[in-house]
């Protein structure tokens, strides 16, 4: 028997960015809110104490801030013909754990979205015709436009204290010659902070990109270019380029996180409670299955606790939002054979390519310096900023030098042909450690009928519940796009005139490799849209089937963006919260009639 807690107005599952934003918005609306976080309490103090936090072995290598796969993981297979096996060592993606979630250990690249990517299918069909999109590719429109989201992008940037340079503000050109991005959509305001300074490697990229004829711009970064106070009164310190962002707690208070930017404003509120060590195992539904009554979780002592609530927000990591919906019976599970059902469909990722350029000792790139959101990028091949017609693939990639800090254990990289160990390796490492530039094409990834999520029929977690099963592999479109991007980015690398170049891209026949990290940007599975037959959520991130369940997060993306997702995740969460505050609370029920 569960212990039943006092009913609250809203329960939030997960306290990362979406959970924190929702908590702030819903407490502002006067609701009593409880946020349940499966992991422990974490904050800058004591988890980011200097100098203890500057410890690559503890954080990056032993994965201190990530999900504990001995308790819960996913099983993975390449196709429905394969048997999925549990992923027993995190590698290719890194879900967070504990207060702040992945928002505590992220890098801080803080983009908006290219407007065409919000209406991906419509846009491609309009420009290239219906037949251009390959058979089996299930890309869709989000059901919300850039113009509708613009005020929420703007507000999220002010909450995050984002550094960057606008191209146009209310139609006025402001960013030419200052690091603005000519492909960026119009904005209602500039960034709250000016761009960060650029590392030397980013300056080399900028120069080379200009020579090749591309249009370099400063990456928008949620690492501060100076001290900042956000609209909630929360303060940030200035980034000092220490290079310990992704995988770490920022000891300078300069990387935006739920902990630094939102939690201080929530802590004093009498109508808010943050309950760590509360692992939610299901959303409870009433007998009609169309209304949630709350959630059930396991506390730190292993007790089953029921938390009743009028409103349930699933704000967990992408994988967990999808899994909780499947475990709770919210929405019809997706079946790739019939192409019916909605929960688990349109699971997508990101499609990266990397080039490393190695220089002589007179080029000092000092790679130990870095900031997770910092760098110089080009958008000439992102989204649909170029004619895809002759190339026969869907999707685009921004490309950049994003020198985030090369740490001593994993940060070593040597020119192709260097032995992997021994004296030759040592010599090369000494020669090249601070004389190299790494650049990425951070590609969009499309959704396909064959890439999806469901519950594993065999493997269970520490609480006896089925694991989530990931069926995923690279498709022809992905390889084509990756090869195209590698070739374009190669021109920039060549223009730098390095001593040696390593090209790390995808080859025809390559399969998804769970050991090799590229990004943590998993998307889809509980996607938003305009049709309940092809989406789990309506345009306000409200479940079509259970109207008092909202599911913010990248799980709502129908496909993967070219950009990093956090900016769009935050804006969509504010957009959803606005709909809850202004429409749903007045008249609880479906906000869109199916």
């Amino acid at each position: 028997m569960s212990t039943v807690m006092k009913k609250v107005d809203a329960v939030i599952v997960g306290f990362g960015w979406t959970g924190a934003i929702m908590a702030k918005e819903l407490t502002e609306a006067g609701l009593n809110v409880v946020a349940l976080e499966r992991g422990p309490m974490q904050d800058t103090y004591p988890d980011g104490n200097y100098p203890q936090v500057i410890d690559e072995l503890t954080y990056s290598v032993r994965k201190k801030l990530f999900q504990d796969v001995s308790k819960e993981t996913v099983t993975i297979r390449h196709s429905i013909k394969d048997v999925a096996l549990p992923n027993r060592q995190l590698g290719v993606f890194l879900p967070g754990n504990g207060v702040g979630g992945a928002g505590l250990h992220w890098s801080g690249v803080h983009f908006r979205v290219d407007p065409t990517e919000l209406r991906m299918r419509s846009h491609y069909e309009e420009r290239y015709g219906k037949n251009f999109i390959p058979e089996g590719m299930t890309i869709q429109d989000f059901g919300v436009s850039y113009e509708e989201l613009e005020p929420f992008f703007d507000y999220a940037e002010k909450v995050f204290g984002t550094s960057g340079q606008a191209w146009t503000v209310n139609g006025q050109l402001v960013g030419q010659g200052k690091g603005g991005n000519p492909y960026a959509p119009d904005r209602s305001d500039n960034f709250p902070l000016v761009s960060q300074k650029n590392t030397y490697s980013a300056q080399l990229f900028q120069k080379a990109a200009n020579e090749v004829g591309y249009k370099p711009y400063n990456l928008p970064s949620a690492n501060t270019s100076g001290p900042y106070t956000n609209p909630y009164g929360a303060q940030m310190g200035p980034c000092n380029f220490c290079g310990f962002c992704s995988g770490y707690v920022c000891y300078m208070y300069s990387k935006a996180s739920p902990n630094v930017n939102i939690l201080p404003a929530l802590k004093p509120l009498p109508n808010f409670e943050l309950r760590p060590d509360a692992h939610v195992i299901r959303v409870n539904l009433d007998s009609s299955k169309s209304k949630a009554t709350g959630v059930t979780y396991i506390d730190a002592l292993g007790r089953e606790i029921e938390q009743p609530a009028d409103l349930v927000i699933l704000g967990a990591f992408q994988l967990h939002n999808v899994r909780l919906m499947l475990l709770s019976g919210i929405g019809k599970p997706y079946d790739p054979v019939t192409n019916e059902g909605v929960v688990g469909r349109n699971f997508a990722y990101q499609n990266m390519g990397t080039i490393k350029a190695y220089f002589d000792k007179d080029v000092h790139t000092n790679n130990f310096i870095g900031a997770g959101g910092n760098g110089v990028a080009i958008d000439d091949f992102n989204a649909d900023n170029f004619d895809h017609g002759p190339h026969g693939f869907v999707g685009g990639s921004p490309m950049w030098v994003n020198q985030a800090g090369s740490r001593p254990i994993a940060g070593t990289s040597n020119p192709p042909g260097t032995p992997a160990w021994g004296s030759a390796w040592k010599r090369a490492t000494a020669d090249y450690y601070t004389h190299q530039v790494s650049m990425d094409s951070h590609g969009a990834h499309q959704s396909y009928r064959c890439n999806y999520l469901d519950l594993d029929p065999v493997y269970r977690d520490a609480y006896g519940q089925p694991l989530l099963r990931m069926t995923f592999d690279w498709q022809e479109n992905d390889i084509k796009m990756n090869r195209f991007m590698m070739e374009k980015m190669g021109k920039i690398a060549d223009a730098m005139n390095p001593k040696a170049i390593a090209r790390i891209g995808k080859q025809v026949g390559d399969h998804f490799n769970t050991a090799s990290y590229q990004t943590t940007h998993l998307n889809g599975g509980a996607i938003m849209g305009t049709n309940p037959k092809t989406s789990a959520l309506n345009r306000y991130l409200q479940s079509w089937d259970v109207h008092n369940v909202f599911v913010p997060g990248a799980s709502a993306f129908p496909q993967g963006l070219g950009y990093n997702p956090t900016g769009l995740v935050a804006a969509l969460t504010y957009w959803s919260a606005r709909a809850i505050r202004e429409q749903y609370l007045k008249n609880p029920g479906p906000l869109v009639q199916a």
Partner: protein
Amino acid sequence: MKAFVIATLALFSSFSAVAADSDPQALVKQGEYLARAGDCVACHTAKDGKPFAGGLAMETPIGTIYSTNITPGKSGIGSYSFEDFDKAVRHGVAQNGSTLYPAMPYPSYARVNQDDMQALYAYFMKGVKPVEQANQEADIPWPLSMRWPLAIWRWLFAPAVADFKPQAGQDAVLSRGAYLVEGLGHCGACHTPRALTMQEKALSASDSPAFLSGSAPLEGWIAKNLRGDHKDGLGSWNEEQLVQFLKTGRSDRSAVFGGMSDVIVHSMQYMSEADLTAIARYLKSLPAVDPADAPHQYDSTVADALWNGDDSKRGAAVYIDNCAACHRTDGHGYTRVFPALAGNPVLQSNDPTSLIHIVLKGGTLPATHTAPSTFTMPAFDWRLSDQEVADVVNFIRTSWGNKAAEVKASDVKVLRE
């Protein structure tokens, strides 16, 4: 702005008297505000205890005493008439006639106005929830436990009770500041040095330059000099910075730590802008103790050396490895976030206790209503030896134009224990 503050202040004082007459609730509210100004809750509440129920242990040279229950219940002050209450607060005499330990700052409260006493009484009788919690006897051995010598102390050192009278022709803001600082605020209780007989060496600005000139260490922290000295006082602070500091616990260049944190959290952040301005203006009117006082002159020698990779100055390497990330090699810190060390008066007092203490134990900037972020300086006692702490403290106290007496490893050892 100045005119506005004065006008608001005048309005506040006249309005409150009128409102209090006609509306008992307003009198209770006024009393609550004044109780905040007096920070009664700080001493009269035990750690994790009920507000005003007493029981907080206070170390004195003769033993431990415990604050009393001042809630309006049977075990508190429920049976106190206004006269009893006034006798305790302003005269230092309890209902039973015995003299209070001067941990109760009645020598300061002696100048609180009769009207404000009425408001405080109304608040403690009607605005505070009664808590039944018996008072705890002091752990003081006989014969020191006898109370009659306290009466002599009181007779010798407590001033006559009299309503505060502004000096003729004094600026209204300044005199309001004097009233709050010398009276209810009882700032001197910590910030004024005490004589061997434990009385504050001065109770007001007119008494002597000892007033608010900084004290000996109290619970491991120095209550700093609040006078006009640039080296270790408030000479380099302006009125606006002081108001910001008292309201939020932080200013562009500084952050509260040590014993003052609780004062900000429980008391100062509740004060009106007008009262904080009055306090700040009054403090800024106190002249420097040191006749040779001069503004801090920044010296870039050390910053230049560190910039050029020269860490040969003793303590420099420890500073680089532990402090420079936030406070920077030039000692300027970062505005509003990490305090400047160059020219910072709390680091240059003769007694280095506060600086050693914060290096060893760290500190957390408290959240306030208008500034909710808490910044924490972590502790370094687990990784720095006594000698290393002494080296880095000396480095800080003699770099970027800072000047202060040398610290020895033995000084650190004492504080570590």
